[in-house]
């Protein structure tokens, strides 16, 4: 699963730590998600999408191997 968190973050001028604080997770989690090393739960994906005020599909999308 790939995601556009880094891009969305850049548009709002947020750091990983800012985003992590707002959602209530660790900075390492955001980093791991952005790098594609960790697939977040549906709950966490929805929280991230809500923060960026976009539908979850716009931020997260499936890849061929999923």
């Amino acid at each position, binding site marked *: 699963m790939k995601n556009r968190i880094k891009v969305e973050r850049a548009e709002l001028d947020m750091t990983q730590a800012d985003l992590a604080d707002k959602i209530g997770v*660790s900075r390492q*989690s955001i980093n*791991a998600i952005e790098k594609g090393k960790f697939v977040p739960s549906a709950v966490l994906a929805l929280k991230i999408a809500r923060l960026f005020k976009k539908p979850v599909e716009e931020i997260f999308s499936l890849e061929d191997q999923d």
Partner: protein
Amino acid sequence: MKASYLLPYKYKALGWILFVFGLISGGIVVFGGYDFDILKVNVISIYDEGGFLGGTKGFFNIIENSILDELAALSIIVGGLLVGFTKEKVEDEFIYKLRNDSLVWAIIFNYLVLAFTVIFVYEFSFFHVLVFNMFTPLLFFVIRFNFLKFKSDNDEE
């Protein structure tokens, strides 16, 4: 994130103190040959089959025993459990996954090492393997978990 059997973060420091104290005193016990006269107290022995280490054969005897090794073992167990199974400062699903992955890794690694020693270590030396193996699953888990946390900490953007 549901993680109900994890204890609060505040116990982690205590866990580290006990764990390190246990490992050091445990090392002293092992390398000192298990034979110490300090901290001798009367303890209840539920069952003793006698044998080559001496002792009184039978059930529920009161015996005199140096409890240094018992204290060391309990420190490692309690300390290790606290270090491994208290919440992180920010506990979330990623940390939870790291913890689970570390547990799986530690169990597999521990039994690979044990299998190796079963094949290549014999006689009384295997006794040391048995002693170490009481604590290595916990030790490998704690090391692996903290290594993964450290790695993701330093894995910058």
